[in-house]
């Protein structure tokens, strides 16, 4: 047994290594505790090269903590972050990453161009290369004509675009964005996603957190839902629906009348003031459900049948609404 087991060990390790090195980013079993609060408890997921990944989760789920661990600003208690199979703790590995914090992390008393030059230099760009990239970035965010204006005089959306541009000057292979579209009007949001699409077409992997489900659904290739510091779902929107609600339809029933108990098999959703359940075959199962409501004394006033979307998946998994 021993003789057999020994040569196997390195083989297993090397396949694991290979597994991670095909991913642009791997988060492996990440744990982080703040005081008594367990912010991350065994989070794991991978990001493929060129993939756009949305991190979803209710407030306090640990998304920001996750992003900050990925860029080395939070030291996890346990676990590992790998970029193309290499730990971020190895020297120079982090240089292939770009980070855009949730706050506006730019100097308000510098012009757009000066901000870009500053962060470009800090990422190691010099002279001609720097000038080229700054010029490209200004064009990319559509602020060429405002390059020499102080950023404090910019609108919220313009500041956000400068904030994003400062993190991509050095052509990172992986870009992390923490709520890049918070507080931005729909047009600017559209503009920001067009910018990100441009990057992902060039092969940049993008990880972003958001509370806009529609953004995650339409603008990202894959969705990871985090709750209580754990990954509760991971996949494309179709996979998530199939994994959670499946081909089921949601039935929402509004009923009045004095009910002795909740109708069997139905769940009361307090925010929507409706009884909910999921059915696979509407025609076959619906009569039975209506009967059950009536049997406990309910008088049905309204009824809806929904095709499931990310909103339902999210509710199904976390039991909570997202903010906004």
């Amino acid at each position: 047994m021993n003789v057999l087991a020994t040569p196997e060990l390195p083989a297993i390790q090397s396949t694991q290594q290979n597994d991670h090195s095909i991913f642009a980013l791997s988060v492996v079993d990440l744990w982080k505790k703040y005081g008594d609060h367990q912010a991350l408890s065994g989070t794991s997921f991978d990001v493929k090269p060129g993939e756009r990944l949305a991190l979803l989760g209710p407030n306090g789920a640990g998304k920001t903590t996750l992003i900050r661990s990925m860029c080395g600003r939070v030291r996890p208690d346990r676990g590992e972050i790998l970029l193309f199979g290499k730990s971020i703790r190895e020297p120079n590995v982090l240089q292939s990453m770009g980070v855009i914090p949730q706050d506006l992390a730019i100097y308000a008393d510098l012009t757009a161009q000066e901000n870009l030059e500053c962060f470009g230099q800090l990422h190691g760009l010099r002279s001609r290369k720097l000038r080229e990239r700054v010029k490209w970035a200004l064009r990319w965010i559509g602020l060429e004509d405002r390059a020499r204006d102080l950023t404090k005089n910019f609108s919220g959306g313009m500041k956000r675009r400068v904030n994003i541009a400062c993190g991509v000057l050095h052509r990172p292979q992986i870009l992390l964005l923490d709520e890049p579209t918070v507080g931005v009007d729909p047009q600017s949001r559209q503009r920001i996603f067009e910018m990100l699409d441009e990057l992902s077409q060039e092969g940049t992997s993008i990880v972003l957190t958001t509370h806009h489900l529609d953004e995650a659904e339409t603008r990202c290739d894959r969705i990871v839902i985090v709750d209580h510091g754990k990954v509760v779902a991971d996949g494309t929107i179709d996979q998530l629906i199939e994994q959670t609600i499946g081909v089921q339809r949601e039935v929402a029933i509004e009923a009045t009348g004095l009910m002795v108990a909740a109708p069997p098999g139905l769940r009361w959703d307090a925010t929507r003031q409706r009884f909910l359940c999921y059915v696979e075959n509407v025609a076959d199962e619906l009569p039975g459900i209506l009967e059950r409501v009536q049997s406990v004394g309910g008088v049905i006033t309204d009824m809806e049948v929904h095709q499931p979307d990310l909103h339902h998946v999210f509710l199904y998994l976390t039991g909570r609404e997202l903010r906004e």
Partner: protein
Amino acid sequence: MIWTVMQTSWRRLKNNRSELFLTFVVPVIFFSIFALIFGSRDSSSSTPKIKVAIANAHPSELSNKAVLLLGEQKSLRISEHANSTKAGDSKTTVATLDRATAEDLVRRGMVSAAIVFSKPTDQALPNNAPKIEILTDSFDQVASQVLAAIVQKAMLTATAEIAKSSNPINGSAMNGIPNAAMQPVDVQHALYTRANSSGSAITPSNPLIQSPDTMSMLPQVAVVDVIGGKKTNPVVAMYAAGIAVMFLLFSATTASGSLLEERENSTLDRLLCSRLTMDQLLLGKWAFLTAIGATQLTLMFVWGSLVFGIDLLHHLEGFAAMTLVTSGAASSFALMLAALCKTRMQLGWVSTIVILSMSALGGSMVPRYLMSETIQRAGLLTFNAWALEGFNKVFWREMPLTEIGTELAVLTVCGFGFIVAARVFAIRWERS
């Protein structure tokens, strides 16, 4: 409406523990610090004394007696500085200190003044009547005036006592002073010289010693200004350094608040996600603050030389050295304070308290020699004191670069220590 504004302001203050603390506890701390510095409490041990050196270069019975009497004076502290260089007990040291050494001590600021008893040059005076000089630093005007009066009093008392002991009627034979040594008439001549001989001679009219035949003869004490006399720099040079160092500290701490600003809006996250390390960030900020500080000091002294007559041109070397190390130390100190604080508001409070206290203690507001002994010693813990001493040595005492080595070394070590402390405090920002 106004009420709502007041109420909201109060609620915000109430919810902010550290600010609440600072608002109401700091006044008490502040008051205590300044009361301690400027109003010495325990009068016996720590009242300000005039620090003097006595050079009894031409010992005579009269001068020995006067030296003893001066030694008993509560308001004087006789420097035993020469002890370290010259062996022997303090009495012989006092006797062996010569005029040049005493003058040197005053020049270096080791003592506020020196009392020199020397051989009279005036042939008209009797042989053993010492010529009395007070060597002072003209910056310390009060000390020299007080000292002159004290010396005169001591001389008169000594004369009177000697006269008493040499007079058999007064029973002087019993107190063991040999009569042969006494020459009462000569002593009288020695002490009472013509009052109008020098402008700087001080001749108090003490009714006790004014007998009809000595009416015009009073002990003459010549006050010699060994620093201000020859110098071109006005007193403003001394104040300039005090003001400049305090200003430098305020300016540097305000600027170092940028570190906290970057932390508050997570620019620090972004900076540290780039190739920049915390070491480089702190060093970059330090170099910038130092450059700005040096420029500010230069600006102040250039303006001082143009408008207030400070002789900058002849002290460029010392000025440059002091300016560099002082602004370097101030920048390190500012960064340390910033790294210690959580918010810019806190930094504002903390720096105000610390800088004002340090400036008061270190002599930026009131010269240190006016403070009590204990406080003067405590002042050496502030780097203001060392910076001011260095600048004073350069501009006031006109000492060469080699003489300010201690100050330069202390400030360099301080600067280094503070920046290392700042780096240690900043570890908590690097990774949470």
